[in-house]
């Protein structure tokens, strides 16, 4: 019942993911952070096969960091999305494929635009104004179709996100519980309470 959402607005991207770690029918943890901060302006929410997720997210995190150390500048969101996609796609037809779904949200400090990429475990990448993974996507995407506004202020964006979270809690068989919400804009990354 893992769920993650992300949406863009005027100069920002909001990324949200539930905080429950589930194994079989048991809740193992209720405050897990499933959103990695890859660089000063890049966020990545990950979900999927337990084990693969953390392994892959840390692999990506270290490589993005390595690039920044070597080149002084971090990868821009589009370039990071391409690199991450390739990492997934190259292992897809092997015996050790990563079963990880990602939402990559970033603020491009060169073009001053917020970017959001929907990436699935096969290496499908598409840039979108809003996105969701997991069972929550079946409820949230139609809400976002109705309420998403690319020119919305952060307060309005968070209100839209709240609608999605509330709807999933109301209609999904198992409530995903608490969410961690992070925002990336021109000033960098910060966590937001909702």
């Amino acid at each position, binding site marked *: 019942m893992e769920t993650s959402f992300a949406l863009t607005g005027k100069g920002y991207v909001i990324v949200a993911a539930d905080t429950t770690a589930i194994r079989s029918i048991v809740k193992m943890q209720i405050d897990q952070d499933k959103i990695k901060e890859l660089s000063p302006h890049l966020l990545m929410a990950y979900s999927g096969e337990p084990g693969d997720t953390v392994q892959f997210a840390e692999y990506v995190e270290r490589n993005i960091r390595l690039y920044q150390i070597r080149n002084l500048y971090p990868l821009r969101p589009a370039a990071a999305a391409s690199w991450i*996609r390739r990492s997934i*796609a190259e292992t*897809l*037809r092997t015996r050790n494929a990563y079963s990880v779904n990602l939402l990559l949200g970033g603020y491009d400090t060169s073009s001053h635009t917020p970017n959001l990429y*929907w990436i*699935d475990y*096969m*290496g*499908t*990448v*598409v*840039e*979108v104004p809003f*996105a969701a993974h997991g069972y929550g*996507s*079946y409820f949230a*995407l139609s809400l976002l179709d109705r309420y998403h506004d690319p020119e919305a202020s952060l307060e309005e964006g968070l209100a839209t996100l709240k609608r999605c979270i509330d709807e999933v809690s109301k209609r999904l068989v198992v409530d995903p519980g608490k969410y961690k919400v992070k925002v990336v804009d021109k000033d960098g990354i910060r966590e937001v309470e909702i």
Partner: protein
Amino acid sequence: MSIMEYNGGSVIAMVGKDCVAIASDLRLGSQALGISSNFQRIFPVTDRVYVGLPGLATDVTTLRERFRYRVNMYTIKEEREIEPETFAHLVSSTLYQHRFGPYFIEPVMAGLSKTPSGGFKPFIAATDLIGCLNFAKDFVVAGTASAKLFGVAEGLWEPDLEAEDLFETISQTLLNAVDRDAYSGWGAIVHVITKDKIITRTLKGRMD
């Protein structure tokens, strides 16, 4: 559930009088769930050749990158741009190299090839996912709405259409075919290639 229908999407190409057209819908889905209404699956190869890649979306990106690499290598080695016929064989051999573990894509190509007299001849082709080439004289289709596209194209297409008439024909064929397919639609893009310019238009479609 077939892997070829996992993401949805369709492409069609048509021949006109001294012009060709290639068009595709813009949907990317995850089975019945729509993810994006702006997923490009038609790419320029040279100024006069376009390729459409319907099928599994991850392979759309992978093959696009592969074709870009191979065409760049060809251009550097040969010191000239690739002809559509040659590109069709490049596509075919790339796919056949993966005969027993294929890319789940059925490419469609459209372009104008140079004639010895210095003119241009319309060229279209399509292959299956393992690279079996189909050189058609009229139109080629591929993707989740291919059966519907065949029917509508068979009814609307006629020989020697001028560029604007060809645009109308391919647009109506695509829009009406994808409206009968749940996995294709959500807008469309059309490219008409003529000898001195390329006309690209984005079409609005039904959003259901």
